[in-house]
């Protein structure tokens, strides 16, 4: 029995800030930061947006493309490192907002930037085992970067939702594999507003080791080489890492360009690979093969080998906004507005 993607939906907030604007405030060369990270701008959530609202919008877009009875959704998982509550699931609010309650299991996941792909894996297990007819996996974040920290140039907001099932699959997930170690490259302690990271340690022993290992494991298990894939999506903490990663593994720029969104919207963390895959599905044709490797600090990689099915031809992709539509719907803001929106200004009393 094949398990795969039945539908998908994406959402990216419309506000944008450029690295030059951030650098101007902190006495840094914003142009150089932007070039170094290969980021031209990043998305910023409005003051009334958070992981719940982003997840709901993505999930509703998913259901616009495939209007199933929400009561057939028996599992829903939201992966994020910016859940609005420390205790009180994001997923219950999302499930209520898409009218999937009460006959389902719900949980919130956290694994830095790969919590959304972990949610896809668990949905695959639930659906494949016959414990759920459909599962919804969401990766979404309103990621945090400390003022002046290099992360502030990339940490952005967005998310995507996936309906996983066994009927009317538009993309079969042929195989998923993970590579996981205990690597402290990036973390945020309980109650702290901003994450900390190991600087250059986040590269070689963290991102590159895990993504390479997972990619090679997956290709070895599938008996494939990079040329067998039409598209590849790698986790994209900045624009440079995934392009370097692709080159190291033998993928061409043409294979990764559709799913490479960070240069235009920043690093959406748990939303990054789900959004990149959504951008690929927006244009994919039946028979296209997609290679996906997510990465989450801490650290681990989830890999997916995916084949687009003939059902894509009759799938109503135009029923919801495509990722490129969301990327073009922008309003640029200055740093003062960004600081206000992100709660970086100490107010007299707490408000949203």
């Amino acid at each position: 029995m094949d398990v795969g993607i039945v539908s998908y939906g994406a959402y990216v907030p419309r506000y944008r800030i450029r690295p030059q604007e951030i650098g101007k405030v902190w006495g840094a060369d914003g142009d150089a930061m932007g070039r170094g990270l290969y980021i031209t701008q990043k998305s910023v959530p409005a003051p009334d947006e958070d992981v719940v609202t982003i997840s709901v919008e993505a999930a509703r877009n998913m259901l616009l493309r495939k209007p199933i009875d929400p009561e057939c959704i028996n599992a829903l998982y939201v992966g994020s490192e910016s859940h609005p509550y420390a205790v009180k699931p994001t997923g219950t609010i999302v499930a209520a907002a898409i009218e999937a309650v009460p006959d389902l299991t719900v949980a919130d996941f956290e694994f830095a930037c790969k919590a959304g792909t972990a949610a896809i894996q668990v949905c695959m297990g639930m659906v494949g085992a016959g414990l759920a007819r459909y599962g919804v996996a969401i990766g979404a974040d309103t990621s945090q970067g400390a003022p002046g920290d290099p992360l502030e140039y990339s940490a952005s907001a967005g998310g995507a939702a996936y309906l996983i099932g066994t009927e009317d699959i538009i993309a079969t997930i042929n195989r998923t594999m993970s590579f996981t170690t205990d690597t402290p490259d990036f973390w945020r302690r309980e109650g702290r507003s901003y994450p900390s990271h190991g600087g250059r340690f986040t590269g070689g022993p963290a991102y590159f080791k895990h993504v390479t290992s997972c990619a090679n494991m997956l290709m070895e298990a599938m008996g494939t080489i990079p040329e067998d894939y039409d598209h590849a999506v790698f986790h994209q903490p900045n624009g440079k890492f995934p392009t370097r990663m692709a080159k190291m593994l033998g993928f061409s720029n043409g294979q990764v360009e559709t799913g490479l969104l960070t240069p235009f919207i920043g690093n959406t963390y748990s939303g990054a690979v789900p959004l990149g895959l959504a951008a690929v599905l927006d244009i994919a044709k039946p028979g296209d093969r997609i290679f996906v490797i997510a990465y989450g600090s801490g650290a681990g990689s989830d890999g997916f080998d995916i084949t687009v099915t003939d059902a894509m031809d009759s799938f109503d992709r135009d029923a919801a906004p495509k990722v490129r539509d969301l990327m073009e719907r922008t309003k640029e803001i200055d740093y003062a507005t960004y600081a206000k929106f992100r709660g970086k200004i100490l107010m007299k009393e707490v408000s949203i």
Partner: protein
Amino acid sequence: MAAPRFWREAPSRYNLVATRCGNCGSVSFPPRSFCPKCHRKSVGRMERFRLAGKGSVYTYSVVHEVPSELDMQKPYVIAMIEMDEGAKLTAQVIDVDPKDVHIGMRVRATLRRLGDEGPDGIIHYGYKFVPILN
């Protein structure tokens, strides 16, 4: 607002659940137990259903003197939305420059944070409206 009260209103705030009178067909939002036109004739004939979420700006105002919980969003647009099913409701119109809002503007519902009960309280989510993109 106490958590239970908000919780009771969640179906309407999240999903625009309304009622239609089985006698005259008029739509009420939020849901009503009785039709304001048919009164006793509507007893037991009020059907709950979900509004499709699309409508037009019936009238609006740009608010500059705002309650403290909306400080971050001022100036904001508060509008009366005429839903395609006929009911009118009041909500913020967001993701648009206030000067671009106009009567008759087509809008759709989305879920956003409405406010919270301080750093220790619950977060309130509910409908706001965004322009329908062509």
